């Protein structure tokens, strides 16, 4: 036992590269953006007595307090996910005794500052302290009928009590009153009969329930002792949907008109002049704020409700960035300055999910909350500096070009490039001329190791950002209006059509997405370094079914896009690349029916059209068509496999089965006998052959899968033993390689030998991703994002399916650990150390210029960027490397040896004279 433990320990010690950071390296290679999501409610509290704060709630079920001066998060509470945590109500306490500010005054005796209500079954009511973000109380309510409770809503009455309303559509409303801080009900549930209420046509505004019924608006005051139906006539076919006016009880806006049902609420006319309206108290005065956007100028005006005149001359005219879209005023607050005039601050949320803080005529700060929902990320090489570019030019001799091949041409190019270098010294180093481009001014120049890159991030709303991967600075942003993800939850795509390696041609990135209105494809191309749009936005006249790319061509260095539309027609963008798509293989997968179809594209010379020819069908739906595709994992197309095999203990080589056309398809479904069944199929998508299939019983999702080189790893939840597990699969060709140079899926490739093993995980997995490096020499590690917000770098030798259960006296293989069923949770392998990433959704990896280093972007609510070196930084000197010491030692040694040589020469001379 002791011997094997020592062996184990020794092997772990030798194999395990220590990956932990030193204390002084914290935040040196990584940065994190703390996000909160799109803000939908805000309360601004500026007062002379307390610390200023902006309390917000967001669509991501987060409540937070921001600093109004900087926009930084003071505290943040991440509440439960949808649908359980759906935020139904957030209410700031308005205390009558204190000045009417958003936040409780210190002298207030009320037990809470912020009240939130979430979910419906059970509904959770919580009270929060606005200063610390601490939970003050919590109670929950389990509804009698879960079905009707789903549509239930809550409102906070003027009497400080909480009202719970359950609408029974087509019949009546049930209203129950609760004491907010303990959940005791006041009296019995009252039933208000209202046969006219309909789903999706009603809303709550303050204590009023308002429905649009044909050409009438019907409203009920739910707090009244005997509610009366109030009626108003509206135009019969409204263009917009019904919207409650913020800060007003019983008022809705429809087609630019305001309909108010509460006679006590004054609104200064029934027409909205601006796009956004808000009513709020400032001290004891009731004010109306209107915001109007015209030609990129945002005008915000404040009116007094009493006089309907502009209040204290408060008016803001702001230069508004056009990419932000339509704004909405959420909160405002004013204070008196030394000149005794009012300075007002406005909080706006915009169409592109940004949060703006406007003070006077300026935007003080903006939070880009679209980054809380990232769908895709790409690391783009920065352009070369001028001097590097000319050297690159000099070295790049095109074989086809005659001028380049002769000696004289090469010499003249060298002289020219050296003149350029001398000139650039005068221009830039001595500061005689301006930096040639804006990107160079911003310091966006490729570094020696290719670690500095432009991080292009595409978000769910259609906003793209260019971030600096070293410090997180936003260099540019673009907003694509009204686009959405594809069907089946397939996300929009960000692709690199031309990399920045092909100087002087500019790099091109393209977003392929779907229009929210027409459901047809949209293509948007831009330069990833500057963010400038290239050409027009391409609105396609067909729906996209599948996307493929042609290999980079040799003249334009462009990767053309092949689109497969819903009528199985093939389109190539740009058009003139059509001929090159001849002989391309494509496949489509239907998620519901679990049928995969393979196509071969043929270019018809006569018609100039590409014709897809169906060549194979795979049906994974199984018994009674119960199985549905839940996940498809292909390999990273830029991956290089450096090592073709694995050396065994008898010195023979086990060759890897490296099939670039292999795709893993996971299907899940219910089964009568085995309850939950999950199948994993490895499909060759050129020949349509199912290379290997595995079935797991009593296994549930969510399935996370990673596929690379000759291996596959997937995690799932085992329902039988109630734990997370991970299965690793490795494919080998065997001891001989069929064809080491060319792989053809059609020429009956050999069937792989499959090694498999499962392990128990001590955490639940949110995402799996492999590391990738330039040449694939560095070991591959699997990055595991856990639900606790950690990212673990798991070396492959832990997941290796060839880990044997060791029998004593058995020869052991190099680099293979003995099998232990549970994988360890290695604290020092957590690449985000103590920086928890809230709600991790995905991880993106990219190679850097250094073979040892892989760049990592983790997204979720927060954004985290770092770099990892799976085999340690073998190609880099340590950063605390002592250059001075080694230089001094060298100089000292050289001089000492010269001196000693002199001495010895003299000694020999003396000896010779003796």
């Amino acid at each position, binding site marked *: 036992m002791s011997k094997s433990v020592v062996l184990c320990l020794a092997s772990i010690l030798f194999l395990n590269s220590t990956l932990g950071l030193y204390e002084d390296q914290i935040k040196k290679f990584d940065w994190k953006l703390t996000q909160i999501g799109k803000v939908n409610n805000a309360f601004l509290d500026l007062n002379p007595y307390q610390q200023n704060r902006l309390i917000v709630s967001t669509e991501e079920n987060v409540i937070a307090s921001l600093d109004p001066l900087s926009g930084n998060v003071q505290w943040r509470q991440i509440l439960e996910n949808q649908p359980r945590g759906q935020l139904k109500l957030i209410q700031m306490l308005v205390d009558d005794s204190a000045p009417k500010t958003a936040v409780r005054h210190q002298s207030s005796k009320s037990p809470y500052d912020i009240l939130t209500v979430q979910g419906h079954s059970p509904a959770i009511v919580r009270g929060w302290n606005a200063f610390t973000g601490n939970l003050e109380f919590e109670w929950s309510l389990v509804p009698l009928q879960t079905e009707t409770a789903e549509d239930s809503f809550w409102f906070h009455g003027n009497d400080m009590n909480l009202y719970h309303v359950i609408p029974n559509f087509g019949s009546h409303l049930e209203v129950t009153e609760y004491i907010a801080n303990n959940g005791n009900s006041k009296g019995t549930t009252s039933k208000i009969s209202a046969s006219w209420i309909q789903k999706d046509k009603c809303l709550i505004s303050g204590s009023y329930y308002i429905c649009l019924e044909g050409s009438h608006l019907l409203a009920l005051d739910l707090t009244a002792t005997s509610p009366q139906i109030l009626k108003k006539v509206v135009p019969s076919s409204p263009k917009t949907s019904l919207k409650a006016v913020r800060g007003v009880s019983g008022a809705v806006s429809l087609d630019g008109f305001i309909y108010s049902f509460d006679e006590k609420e004054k609104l200064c006319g029934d027409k909205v002049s601006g796009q956004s309206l808000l009513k709020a108290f400032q001290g004891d005065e009731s004010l109306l704020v209107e915001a109007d956007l015209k030609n990129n100028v945002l005008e915000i005006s404040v009116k007094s409700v009493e006089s309907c005149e502009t209040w204290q001359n408060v008016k803001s005219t702001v230069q508004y960035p056009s990419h932000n879209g339509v704004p909405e005023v959420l909160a405002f607050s004013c204070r008196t300055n030394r000149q005794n005039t009012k300075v007002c601050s406005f909080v706006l949320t915009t169409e592109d999910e940004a949060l703006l803080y406007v003070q006077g005529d300026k935007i003080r700060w903006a939070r880009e909350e679209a980054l809380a929902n990232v769908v895709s990320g790409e690391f783009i090489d920065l352009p070369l500096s001028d001097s590097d570019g000319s050297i690159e030019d000099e070295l790049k001799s095109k074989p086809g070009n005659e001028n380049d091949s002769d000696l004289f041409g090469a010499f003249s190019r060298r002289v020219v490039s050296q003149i350029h270098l001398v000139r650039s010294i005068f221009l830039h180093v001595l500061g005689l001329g301006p930096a040639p481009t804006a990107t160079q001014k911003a310091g966006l120049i490729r570094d020696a190791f290719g670690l500095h890159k432009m991080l292009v991030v595409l978000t769910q709303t259609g906003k793209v950002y260019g971030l600096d991967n070293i410090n997180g600075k936003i260099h540019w942003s673009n907003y694509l209006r009204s686009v959405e993800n594809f069907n089946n939850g397939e996300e929009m795509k960000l692709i690199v059509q031309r990399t920045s390696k092909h100087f002087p041609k500019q790099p091109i990135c393209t977003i392929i997405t779907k229009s929210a209105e027409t459901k047809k494809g949209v293509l948007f191309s831009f330069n990833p370094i500057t963010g400038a749009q290239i050409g027009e936005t391409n609105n396609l006249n067909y729906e996209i079914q599948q996307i493929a790319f042609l290999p980079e061509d040799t003249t334009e260095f462009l990767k053309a896009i092949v689109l497969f539309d819903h009528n199985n027609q093939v389109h190539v963008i740009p058009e003139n690349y059509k001929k090159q798509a001849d002989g391309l293989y494509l496949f489509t997968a239907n998620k519901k029916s679990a049928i995969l179809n393979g196509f*071969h594209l043929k270019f018809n010379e006569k018609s100039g059209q590409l014709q897809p020819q169906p*060549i194979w069908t795979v049906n994974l739906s199984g018994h009674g068509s119960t199985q549905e595709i839940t996940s498809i994992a292909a390999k990273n197309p830029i991956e290089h496999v450096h090592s073709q095999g694995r050396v065994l203990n008898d010195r023979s080589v086990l060759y890897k089965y490296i099939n670039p056309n292999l795709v893993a398809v996971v299907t899940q479904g219910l089964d009568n006998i085995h309850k939950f069944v999950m199948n994993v199929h490895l499909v060759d998508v050129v020949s*349509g*052959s199912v290379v290997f*299939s*595995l*079935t797991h019983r009593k296994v549930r999702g969510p399935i996370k899968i990673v596929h690379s080189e000759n291996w596959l790893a997937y995690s799932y939840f085992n329902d039988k033993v109630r734990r997370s597990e991970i299965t690793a699969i490795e494919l080998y060709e065997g001891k001989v390689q069929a064809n080491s140079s060319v792989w053809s899926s059609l020429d009956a490739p050999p069937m792989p030998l499959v090694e*498999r*093993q*499962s392990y128990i995980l001590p955490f639940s997995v949110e995402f799996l991703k492999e590391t990738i490096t330039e040449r694939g020499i560095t070991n591959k590690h699997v990055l595991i994002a856990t639900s606790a917000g950690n990212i673990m770098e798991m070396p492959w030798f832990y997941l290796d399916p060839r880990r044997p259960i060791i029998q004593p006296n058995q020869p052991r293989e190099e680099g293979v650990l003995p099998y232990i069923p549970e994988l360890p949770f290695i604290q020092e392998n957590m690449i985000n150390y103590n920086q928890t990433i809230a709600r991790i959704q995905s991880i993106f990896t990219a190679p850097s210029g250094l073979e040892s280093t892989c760049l990592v972007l983790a997204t979720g609510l927060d954004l985290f960027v770092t770099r990892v070196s799976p085999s340690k930084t073998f190609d880099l000197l340590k950063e605390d490397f002592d250059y001075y010491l080694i230089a001094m030692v060298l100089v000292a040694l050289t001089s000492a040896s010269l001196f000693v040589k002199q001495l010895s020469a003299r000694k020999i001379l003396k000896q010779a004279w003796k």
Partner: protein
Amino acid sequence: MQKLTVFLIFTVVSSSLAYLDSDGWLNIELHHALSSDPSKFSFRGNITVSSLTNGLANDDQNTLTAEEKQSIIKLAENNDFYRVRATVSYSDGSKNTFLTSTKACTLVSSQLTDVFWVSVDSNGFVTAITETVVGQLPGKICGSGEFQPSDLVEFTSDVLIRQMELGPIPDTASFIQKVEREKEARDKGEVKDNRSFFAKYWMYIVPVVVLVMISGATNPEAGGAK
């Protein structure tokens, strides 16, 4: 002109791991596309798999007419796909259609010898049928030379069943066994090493002795020089 050929029984290589809930039979009807019209398929033959567990299958295929032979050669010359539509009928009467293809020229150069891989799931339902060509005759490499109708006699097909395998589960039992075995061994006491001191540690002693001897051999000379 029908000819019955019974083909070899093939057991799946990794049959110990393969998993099937219950045995069943299948009937596969093959149609191939030979004409220029891509949606037109003509009858090729039938394959009957009488047992999925041990892969018993026999096939019954039409001999090719001269016209069909010409069409296959034309496909091969154009480097087109030879496409086969397979309709699978199960014992419960349900049917499923699959499509598979192979390069026509490889099929011709192998003299119409092909293999049908039938992938089945754990309930005996087919997930894919793939036609591949295993060996090409020497001198008849695809893309070179001309094809003669005389090369084509009739289809010679093998049917191989590829079964789904049961996913691995964490092997806690054998790990616990191993730990217990080791514990037992420790309780009993390690096996007494009865070898003498020198037999046990000779590998450490010998180098030391050699070193001492070498230094001893060099020292006297140095002393002598002094």
